[in-house]
């Protein structure tokens, strides 16, 4: 039996194919930032294989070794060693893992809390809206870092606690944006049709509202990633973040800050560059996504 494709379907198929152009060939795609982020992710995943030394064990005999290109440096310790003789490169590599895990999960925690509360508040309105938005206002009035230090002082520093703290501090940004989005979505005809068709509020929020705000949540998450990483580094720097001897970039900077005065610059500069590159890349990607996804959202 021969199947003849109707010409209509054929052109439709062709149109679909041409529309799915490769993502990275899109105009203005931030190739370098994405490469950097992917590289950091790669390093974080394969830290055990890539790091030349154990990041937590050093030997006082070889402390304060400078990077290889400076006098006294050696090829054995490419980026030098710290005050207890630990390899800086290995610590940076494992630090990437900490930053990635803390950054991504904290953004996820904040995103889930904020998106759900934003949808409830925007769609249900009334007292639910009042409660969520007043809490959000209060939250936003608190300086994020001070609030995070306060929470960390209560629950004590650990990686899991840092993630929860950052999630708790930053969910309000999502709640605000998502609520606004929901307010306009719930006036759209397809939501009204769902109401008229007898869908319950739960079904409408879950099936009609949530998928339509996911785009915004993703954009926001990318933009928040930088903020969260900086906050994590700051907390670690202040001694209420990831507890030592775990290698976190902020912690490394804190440890090295005394050495800065006597010329041990590599202890602070390298983790600083890492933080800067990661935050910058995340922000550039976020900016691009925002511009790229927003107008489409309006067009649909």
């Amino acid at each position, binding site marked *: 039996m021969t199947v003849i494709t109707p010409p209509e379907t054929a052109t439709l198929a062709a149109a679909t194919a041409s529309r799915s152009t490769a993502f990275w060939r899109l105009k203005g795609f931030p190739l370098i930032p994405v490469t950097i982020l992917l590289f950091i992710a790669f390093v974080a995943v394969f830290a055990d294989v890539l790091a030349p030394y154990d990041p937590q064990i050093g030997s006082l005999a070889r402390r304060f070794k400078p990077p290889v290109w400076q006098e006294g440096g050696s090829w054995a310790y490419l980026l030098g060693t710290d005050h207890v003789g630990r390899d800086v490169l290995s610590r940076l590599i494992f630090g990437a893992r900490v930053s990635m895990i803390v950054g991504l999960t904290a953004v996820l925690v904040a995103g889930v809390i904020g998106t759900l509360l934003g949808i409830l508040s925007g769609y249900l309105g009334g007292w639910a809206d009042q409660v969520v938005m007043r809490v959000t206002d209060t939250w936003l009035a608190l300086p994020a870092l001070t609030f995070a230090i306060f929470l960390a002082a209560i629950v004590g520093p650990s990686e899991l606690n840092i993630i929860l703290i950052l999630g708790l501090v930053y969910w309000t940004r999502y709640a605000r944006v998502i609520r606004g989005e929901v307010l306009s979505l719930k006036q*759209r*005809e397809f939501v009204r049709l769902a109401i008229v068709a007898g869908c319950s509020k739960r079904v409408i929020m879950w099936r009609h509202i949530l*998928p339509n705000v996911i785009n915004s949540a993703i954009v926001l998450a990318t933009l928040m990633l930088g903020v969260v990483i900086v906050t994590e580094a700051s907390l670690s720097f202040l001694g209420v973040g990831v507890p030592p001897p775990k290698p976190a970039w902020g912690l490394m900077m804190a440890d090295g800050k005394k050495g800065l005065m006597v010329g041990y610059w590599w202890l602070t500069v390298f983790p600083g560059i890492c933080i800067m590159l990661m935050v910058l890349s995340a922000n550039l990607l976020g900016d691009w996504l925002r511009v790229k996804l927003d107008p489409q959202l309006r067009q649909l």
Partner: protein
Amino acid sequence: MSQEPLLSLEHLSAHYVSQQGTRVVRAVDDVTIRLGAGETLGIVGESGSGKSTLALTIMRLLPPAARIVGGRIMFEGKNLVDKPEAEMREVRGKRIAMILQDPMASLNPLFTIGNQVGEPLRVHEGATRANAWQRAIALLKSVRIASPQTRVAQYPHEMSGGMRQRIVGAIGISCEPRLLIADEPTTSLDLTIQAQYLNLLRELQREHGLALIFITHNLGIVAKMCDQLAVMYAGRVVEKGPVARIFNAPAHPYTKALLGSIPRMSDNRRQLTAIDGQPPDLSSLPAGCSFAPRCPAAFARCRAEAPPEFALDDGRTARCWLAAPGVAQSLDAQAAK
């Protein structure tokens, strides 16, 4: 009239009340309408005359500021006014379906057609995903969509306007409702698609024995589609009855003016006829008949006392003192002299 009508609105009133309770907008006021199974009722009126509010009242989907202040909505022998919300959800989409003003925007851009056409089936009948999908294909076929097997898996943006519209129609009839309310479903369409869509609605109505409430401000559509007509003005039904009777001999001056304002090809008039004045503010209605300030035939009684609904001999009713028993004869007598 021994048979019980499918839908019967009895002195139904829905008012918007401001937060302080100082302003009351009588959006729907003392509306009495009966609609039998399989009948088509057209509701016409200017914007703001309460047509859409009436539709939302029947669905019990009034905005929070509005509430039903009196009357009954008898549907299939039960009063919808005191049904709990959970039971109303069973009615919506299953027994009474609705097509909204802008069917073009009525589809969720993120889901496939099959998903959306099947949604009421899954919500109301607990159909499985696969079963809903199969029935969605059949429904697409019934609204004359070519190659439904392909279309069912596509997204709204891959459809033309006319197709999206028919898909919304398919969603409307998916659970075999008894009553379909179409709230100006053609205003956002161009004329050629309008005609197609109206034909489709009529065919669906015939095939499924649906009762249809057609809300519009287009009298041409009413003439083509409807058996019964209700003319609304300032929240009230000023005249209702069989379409042909009303078109031939309107009893209410407002209906007369409305029919007179339709431009015709044969006209040699230089100017289109408009009804002078503005519709009244629904929160401060005049003491008498609400149409009196604009009515060319108004007399003293009209300004003092609002007319009740008078039954005319041919199954019509009109809210006008001119239709009051005795008045008509005396006016006829005057005209004859």
